[in-house]
C-alpha cells in the first residue's frame, strides 16, 4: 500500500527572543493510504503540532514531510510568495479538516459553510450547491441546510463540519479531537461517520484523548514530550 503521509526526522521548534520550545523532535511516521490512525498523548505533547504539519498549516523546522506524493521540507515556508499559493492549493485538493471547536462560520448558513472549500476551486455556483447538499445528505443533515450554525446542536455542528471537510473529496482527513466537545452518544455518531468515510478509502488521522475512540482506529501513534513513543 502506498504512503499517504511520510514524515522523516521532523522537528518543530518555536523560537521567541528568549525561549526556544521544542514541540516535536525527530518524528518519523509512515501512514498508508486508506489507514485510520489515531494520535494520543497528554496535553502539550505535540499532537496538534504534528497534525498541523501533516495538514500543511505549519512548516517543519527540519526534516521532510510528504503528503499525498508531494514532498515539502523546512525550506518551504507557507508564509512566503508562491509557496503560500501552492500550499493552499494542496490543502484544498487533498486535505479536509475537522476541528474540536467545529469552526463553522456563524454568518453563513450550514450549506454555505459546507461550500467553503469549493469556493477555492473552479466550480460554478450550481455545482457547488449540489455537492454541498450531497455532502450534507451523507451526514444526515440535509434538512438543516438553510439553518445557521447557532441553531444546531454540538453534534449537528460537527456533522456539518465533517460535511465541509469531505465535500471536496479529499484523500486525507485530519480530525483534531472531533469528539472532544461532544457527549459519548454524539461522539459515537461522529465516529461512525468517520469510519464510514474511511471505508470509502479516505485516509484519516485523528487526534484524541479518548482511548475508546482510539480503539476504533487501525492503529494508534503515541506522543510524549514532542517525541513519538511507539
Amino acid at each position, binding site marked *: 500500500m502506498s504512503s499517504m503521509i511520510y514524515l522523516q526526522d521532523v522537528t518543530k521548534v518555536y523560537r521567541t527572543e528568549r525561549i526556544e520550545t521544542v514541540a516535536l523532535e525527530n518524528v518519523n511516521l509512515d501512514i498508508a493510504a486508506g489507514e485510520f490512525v489515531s494520535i494520543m498523548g497528554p496535553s502539550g505533547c505535540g499532537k496538534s503540532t504534528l497534525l*498541523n504539519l501533516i*495538514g500543511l*498549516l*505549519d512548516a517543519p523546522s527540519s526534516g521532510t514531510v510528504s503528503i499525498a506524493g508531494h514532498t515539502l521540507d523546512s525550506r518551504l515556508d*507557507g*508564509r512566503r510568495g508562491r509557496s*503560500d*499559493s501552492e500550499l*493552499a*492549493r494542496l*490543502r*484544498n*485538493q487533498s486535505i*479536509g*479538516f475537522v*476541528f474540536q*471547536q467545529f*469552526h463553522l*462560520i456563524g*454568518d*453563513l448558513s450550514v450549506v*454555505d459553510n459546507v*461550500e*467553503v*472549500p469549493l*469556493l*477555492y*476551486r473552479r466550480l460554478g*455556483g450550481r455545482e457547488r450547491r449540489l455537492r454541498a447538499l450531497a455532502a450534507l445528505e451523507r451526514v444526515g443533515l440535509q434538512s438543516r441546510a438553510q439553518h445557521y450554525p447557532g441553531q444546531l446542536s454540538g453534534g449537528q455542528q460537527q456533522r456539518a463540519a465533517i460535511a*465541509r471537510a469531505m465535500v*471536496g473529496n479529499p484523500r486525507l482527513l485530519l480530525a483534531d479531537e472531533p469528539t472532544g466537545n461532544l457527549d459519548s452518544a454524539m461522539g459515537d455518531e461522529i465516529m461512525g461517520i468517520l469510519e464510514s468515510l474511511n471505508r470509502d478509502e479516505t485516509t484519516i488521522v485523528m487526534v484524541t484523548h479518548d482511548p475508546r475512540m482510539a480503539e476504533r482506529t487501525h492503529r494508534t501513534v503515541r506522543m510524549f514530550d514532542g517525541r513519538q513513543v511507539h
Partner: protein
Amino acid sequence: MLQSYFKLAVKVLLRRKFFTFISLFAVSATLLVLLVAAAMLDGVFGPRAPEIRSDRTLGAYLMSMSGPDRTRTAFPGFAFLDQQARNLPGVERMTVFSVPSSVASYPDGRKVSSFLKRTDGDYWKVLDFTFLEGGPYSAEDDVSGNSVAVINATTRRRFFGEASALGKTLEADGQSFRVVGVVPDVPFVRVAPFADIWVPIGTARTSGFRHDLVGEYMALFLASDRSALPGIRAAFQERLRNTPLPDPKMYDTLHGGADSLFDSAARILLTDRFEDSRPERLRALLLGLAVAFMLLPALNLANINLSRILERSSEIGVRKAFGASARTLVGQFLVENVVLTLVGAALGLVFAAATLAAINRSGLIPYAQFTVSLRVFAWAVGMALFFGILSGVLPAWRMSRMHAVQALRGSSL
C-alpha cells in the same frame, strides 16, 4: 465566489450594527462633501446646454497687461478681441460679448435688478440656446444698434407675469428694448451664457470701450473640429505678442490665452500674470485635495476594520485551512469593504442630491442647477472604490498574513 463574498459582506455588516453605522456615516459624510464639490465643479466646467459644443470651443476670459513696474489684470478689451483676435485659423465662428453688468429697472414702480449682457449676433450661433418664445437678434441688429433684447424666463415673469413677452418693451439701464426672444434661465456660474437680459453691443450708449485692449469683454471661438484647437491656441498667443501696446514704457506685454474654461481657471489660479495654463496641475491639486480629505476617514475605517478582523480569526483560519491563499483572502476582504463603501456612497449620493437641491432652492447662486449628473455619479463610484480600497487594503493585508494555526486558536494578528 463573488456572490458568496457579497452575501457574507452583507451579513457581517448586519451583525455589528453600531460599527456599521459608524463606518457608513464616515463614508457617506466624506462622499457627500466630495460629491457636492464635484457637482459644483461640474456645474461650472462641465458641458451642458447651451454650451453643448464645449469640446471644440475655446474662450478668452481674462487677460493681464504687465510692465516693468506694474501689472493690470482684467477681462479682455473689445478692441483686442475685435481687431486682433478675429479670423484665427481653424475658427469656424467667433463671438464677442460683455461681462454681465447689474442694471436696475422700475416696471410698475417696482425695482427689478437684472444682469445685462451685450453681445454680437454670432453669440446665438456659437451658443445653442433653446428659445421658449421668439428667436435671437441678428448681426444686422447689432450693426444697426437696434434696441432689441432676448430675456430669460425669470425676467419675463418679473416684467410681464405669465403673459407672452414678445414685442413688449422693457426698460433696462435707462434704455428701452423690444423683446424678440425668451430663453430658459442659465445658471450664474456659467460664465459665457449667463445673463438675465441680452442686447446687441451696438446699443451701447458710449463707444469708449471700442478702443480698450483690456476691459469688460470676452470671446468664444468655435473651432471647425477638435484637431484645430492647438492651432487656435498658438495663433492667439501670436496675436497677443504682436498686438501693439499704446505705452510700452508702462505696459510692454499682454498675457492671456484662448482656453477651455477649466484651462482658463488653471491659468488664473496657478500663475501670477496668466502667462501659462497648467490644467494638469489644477487637476492634480483638486485630486490631491480630494484624497487628503478622504485620508483621515479612510484611516478611521481601516482601524475599525482591523478590530472587526480580530473577531473573525476563526473564519480566516478555516478559510486558510480549506485552501484560501493570502491573495484570495485579500480579495475577499477588499470586496467586503468595497460593498460597505458602495452602500455608503449610495447614501452619500442621496444626501448630496438633497444638499444640491437645497442649494438650488436657496437662491444663493442665481439660477443654480447643480445636479448629480452621470459624470458626477461615475466620479462618486470611482471615489467610493478608491475609498474602499484605501481603507481596506491594510486590514486585508494584515488578515491575509495571519497564521492559520494561530487564527484557529483565536489569537491576535
